[in-house]
């Protein structure tokens, strides 16, 4: 039977020749991931089982990135639970503050997640790794605890939908714009329980950082996973980083999809998602027309905190100043990106422009710390969610965009198109 890439990866990990959508399987996991918010619950569950050791200390990965550097006593206690457990279990991949990065930027960068892998993480944006041609999905802490103990998890094989992107993107159009546009078409539950397979010539030309951004937001359409066929671009990325073997899987011709959607990227303009759902995406011009003034701009997160994202923001900000009364907060995804940004002179551009430049953290993305909004404030962020209260007070508002739009908006103090700032 012809199978999709998702079905093939699941079948391989379940030890079956084939799997069908709807089938319940138990599969081996290559990596089980949790962070400082979700790990403490998983650890408590794990310890109740009375099992001594995690299934594999190389493959249980704990990344305290959400409320670190510890924002208060409670978060320090949570981080301590994670640290103590990692030490006790002698986990190879625990990342202390000063070496930690945002999990979904860090794991691919360190070669810890690879093509063909089956990865579960107690974090909904675990789906990011689908950009490598892996099956990756978010689960809750209890599912994770079970996987930490047994190295296995149960899955319902999802149906697949095929999204085909063709054409050449116009100026300032990034992976972020493609995915915001797609979520606008599908809706926040448009791909519920399904696998989003993204392909076509526009994806084949998309660099890895844009692919990560796209797979990262599959969950914002309700999808179980997002996945991109591995190719030379993928291999160039993983070859120098991989810490173990990996396998390439490809969808068979004749594999079944619930439906296919064609998207002409040449018609997509830079997007802005209006409050309070990622599906409220429109061309930036619609936001410019409304003259939406901003109190804060955040550039970073697991969606857009990679070096290319920072370069893009720096290109717009070079020689410019952040608008009066506006806070621009720039957060690199990992320590390696931080260092790279220092070496390339990007940090100088940000600081001279009047921005805050922080150590890697999720921070404001989830309204944790490092840039919380007051009632009535408006922010534009390169993050992935603009739910009510996501970045602070329930009466604050969050808009989403790519880093170039965010940087231009920081300069003009309102939602702006990069063309208004860079000639």
């Amino acid at each position, binding site marked *: 039977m012809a199978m999709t890439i998702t079905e093939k990866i699941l079948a391989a990990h379940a030890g079956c020749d084939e799997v069908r959508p709807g089938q*319940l399987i138990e599969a081996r996991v290559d990596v089980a991931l949790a962070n400082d918010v979700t790990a403490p619950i998983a650890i408590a569950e794990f310890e109740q089982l009375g099992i001594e050791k995690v299934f594999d200390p190389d493959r249980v990965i704990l990344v305290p990135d959400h409320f670190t550097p510890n924002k208060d006593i*409670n978060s320090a206690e949570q981080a301590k639970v994670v640290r103590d457990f990692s030490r006790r279990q002698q986990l190879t991949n625990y990342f202390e503050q000063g070496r930690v990065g945002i999990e979904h930027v860090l794991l691919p960068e360190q070669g810890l997640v690879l093509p063909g892998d089956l990865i579960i993480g107690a974090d909904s944006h675990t789906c990011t790794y689908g950009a490598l041609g892996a099956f990756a999905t978010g689960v*809750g802490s209890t599912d994770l605890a079970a996987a930490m103990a047994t190295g296995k998890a149960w899955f319902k094989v999802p149906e697949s939908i095929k999204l085909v992107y063709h054409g050449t993107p116009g100026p300032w159009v990034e992976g972020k714009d493609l995915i915001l546009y797609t979520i606008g078409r599908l809706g926040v539950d448009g791909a519920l329980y399904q696998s989003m397979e993204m392909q076509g010539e526009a994806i084949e030309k998309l660099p890895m950082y844009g692919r990560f951004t796209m797979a990262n937001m599959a969950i914002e359409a309700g999808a179980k996973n997002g996945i991109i066929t591995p190719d030379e671009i993928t291999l160039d990325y993983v070859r120098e980083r991989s810490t173990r073997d990996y396998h390439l899987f490809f969808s068979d011709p004749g594999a079944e999809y619930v439906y296919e959607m064609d998207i002409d990227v040449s018609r997509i303009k830079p997007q802005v998602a209006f409050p309070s759902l990622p599906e409220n995406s429109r061309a930036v011009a619609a936001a410019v027309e409304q003259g939406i003034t901003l109190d804060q701009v955040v550039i970073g997160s697991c969606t857009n905190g990679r070096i290319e994202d920072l370069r893009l923001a720096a290109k717009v900000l070079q020689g410019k100043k952040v608008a009066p009364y506006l806070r621009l907060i720039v957060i690199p995804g990992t320590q390696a990106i931080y260092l790279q940004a220092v070496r390339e002179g990007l940090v100088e551009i940000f600081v001279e422009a009047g921005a805050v430049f922080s150590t890697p953290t999720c921070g404001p993305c989830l309204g944790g710390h490092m840039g919380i909004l007051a009632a009535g404030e408006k922010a534009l962020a390169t993050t992935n*969610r603009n739910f009510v209260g996501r970045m602070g007070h329930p009466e604050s508002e969050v808009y989403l965009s790519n880093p170039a739009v965010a940087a231009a908006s920081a300069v003009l103090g309102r939602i702006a198109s990069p063309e208004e700032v860079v000639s």
Partner: protein
Amino acid sequence: MIYQGKAWKFGDDVDTDAIIPARYLNTSDPKELAKHCMEDADPEFMQKMRVGDIIVADKNFGCGSSREHAPMAIKAAGIACVVAATFARIFYRNAFNTGLPILEAGEAAAEIKSGDELRIDTMTGRIENLTTGKTYQAKPIPPFMQELIDDGGLMAHISKKSKTS
């Protein structure tokens, strides 16, 4: 189990940040989380609701984050069960894993109003609106999920399996 209580109705796409805002996630103590249950959807919810009440919502309830704090907060707040037209995938899974009874029932979700008195049988999926006299049938729970519930959640299921294998 049979539950009887008052309905609290919510709309589409109630996300996990509305159920339990991330600003409170620096703890995983269910009692602390419960204090802020549904806070960003309805700031007075915890003052108004009574133990044993039922949340009813339209499509895609629990979308967003994978935080198990969401079903934990609802359960610890004393909500007996959640009825929705559909649930977001991770929330659905987490609800079973943490033992929060949930039912998918589109017609019931569309017609039930806040304040209606409901009687729900989670075994059969029968939902009775005692205020209007109408009854509804929820989607059956998949056998595997039922097995998890019978074992007392995923961890109990695994510990049972590890003892028998």
